[in-house]
């Protein structure tokens, strides 16, 4: 393809499988299930060539991992909610894009690798999203992991590397962040019919972020992520939003749509869509630093000896 690729839509979906495996057990989960169907139709209308997922349920330690098995076919069972059943999958992965993404990440200083192994346990969040948004696998997918040590800087660079890869690919790409909003769960067994957001505070914070997202203010939400996570126990520091905002151009120029906001076992589960719309966001007043290239950990704990040992003679 010769034309530059681009992000045609950015979406946020929950990370837990209840809307897929047990929608009939809870009115809230059923509303989420129905909202997935509406979102899936909107995604199809965007005619994407690729669904690119960042999932907080796939954690990594050695940098960032990109799924590169062309046809992963296996199954996964949720660690907590095993009684809901098994998620079988048979996916269609865009391997060329995974390689391109790895190269782009490395070019920006990140440690990155592709993984392609039979039986690799693809995470519950990604499987749930792909099952509900792309059930026939007609649209190829890409999946990238969530490094447990990365903070905002590294995650922004990972998002920008994804943007590099998208542009070079010439493809129309839909970006999907698989993440809870507030991530405080009930730690006992509850009646699913009685499911609710864990606390009023979490609920208020979730609604505040969703209000901003509905106005298309994705970058503003990215800027608020640290505070949100402190206040509402955000899922993995809300890294998925950092990644999504960086990949989508770090602006507020979107048309936002909140498809649903419901509890899943106390956590904030939201389905949100953002489509590019020039000039929508208004003035920006950002507090956080921006970074183009990752230069590694600051290594403040290194001793002089280990520093000199690390330098080439």
């Amino acid at each position, binding site marked *: 393809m010769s034309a530059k690729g681009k992000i045609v839509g950015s979406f946020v979906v929950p990370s837990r499988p209840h809307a897929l495996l047990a929608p009939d057990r809870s009115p809230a989960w059923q509303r989420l299930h129905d909202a997935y169907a509406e979102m899936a139709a909107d995604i199809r209308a965007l005619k994407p060539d690729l669904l690119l997922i960042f999932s907080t349920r*796939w*954690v*990594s*330690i*050695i*940098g960032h991992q990109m799924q590169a098995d062309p046809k992963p076919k296996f*199954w*996964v*069972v949720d*660690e*907590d909610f*095993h*009684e809901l*059943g*098994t998620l079988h999958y048979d996916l269609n992965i865009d391997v060329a894009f995974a390689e391109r993404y790895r190269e782009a990440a490395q070019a920006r200083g990140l*440690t990155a690798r592709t*993984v392609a*192994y*039979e*039986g*690799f*346990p693809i*995470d519950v969040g990604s499987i749930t999203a792909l099952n509900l948004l792309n059930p026939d696998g007609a649209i190829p997918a890409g999946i990238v992991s969530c*490094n447990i*040590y990365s903070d905002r800087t590294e995650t922004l660079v990972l998002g920008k590397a994804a943007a590099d890869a998208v542009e070079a690919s010439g493809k129309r790409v839909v970006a999907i962040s698989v993440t809870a909003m507030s991530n*405080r*769960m*009930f*730690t*006992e*067994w509850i009646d699913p019919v009685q499911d609710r957001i864990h606390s009023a505070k979490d609920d208020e914070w979730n609604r505040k972020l969703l209000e901003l997202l509905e106005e298309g203010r994705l970058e503003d939400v990215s800027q608020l992520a640290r505070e949100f996570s402190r206040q509402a126990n955000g899922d993995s520091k809300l890294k998925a939003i950092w990644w999504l905002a960086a990949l989508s151009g770090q602006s507020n120029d979107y048309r936002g749509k909140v498809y649903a906001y419901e509890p899943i*076992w106390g956590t904030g589960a939201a389905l949100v869509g953002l489509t590019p719309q020039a000039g929508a966001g208004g003035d920006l007043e950002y507090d956080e630093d921006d970074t183009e290239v990752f230069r590694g*950990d600051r290594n403040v*704990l*290194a*001793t002089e000896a*280990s520093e000199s040992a690390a330098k080439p003679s």
Partner: protein
Amino acid sequence: MSSSTSSSSPRPPGSGEIVAGCLSPHPPHLVYASNPQQNEPKSSGAGAWKSLLDGYESLRKSLEDREFDVIVVHTPHWKTRVGHHFLGVPKFEGLSVDPIFPNLFRFHFDLQVDVPLAEAIHQEAAQEGLVTSMMRNPEFRVDYGTITSSYLVRPELDIPIVAISSARSYFDYSNEVGEREMLALGRATRRAVEQSGRRALLLASCSLSHRHFTEEPEDPEDPAFEHIHNGNQEAWDRHVMKLMQEGQCAQLLEQMPDFIEQAVSECKDGSLTWLLGALGVPDFPATVHGYGTVIGTGNAVVEWDMRKAQVPAGDQA
């Protein structure tokens, strides 16, 4: 090894005992470096983790003079937020691929589960007021922590296991809440073992300090790459091992919340405190069979031989 299975040595209910408790960390690197037939990747043998492999060999040799019917594992890599879960299916077999180090661990496993004992611990834990659940889905993937620790202690994998998940109480509430829960789970485990008539080997499948490097050398087993992530981590590890060797586990528990925070310790997943609770908070010396680092984390192979216990340990917890 002279250990026998429960079917070959039935014992009356009430006569069960914990024969030993071990800190048995689960870096999949150690299985990789052992080059077992069941693991697809093959190592270079460059030797980065030799001290830990030697430690496990020493532990296996030490256990040879005791018989046990079941291995009970508390694993940090089955993370549950709704209480404490127990494998409740008699047999699991399949392919376990580590999602974090898939280049090192793709292990074909075949495990038997002692479901009656799992159910008994589950019931005792509920009596302690803990939230519990039996895992009955036969397609569930047994986590690689359980497989790795079980393999390294008993490569034949011929003794039934009980696997207990790591509840997120430390993360969802506080280290202190987590500690209370794990001590209660340890007491429950001990009572269930005693009532079952089983001779049990207990494994706490966790590292000590747990800060990883986020890069990997071309040969993951390159010794030139390996060292404890930083001096703070190693100082804490050595302090904790000293307490274990001196039989000062009560003091270790007092310091555990600090250790967890200051050394990013995997003890935050509760395995070690569970073990100490089940052993009655030992006041007798442990044997440190080995200490070493895997991708920056601090790992110790430690054994508490219950023959060294001076008083009924249940009275001490």
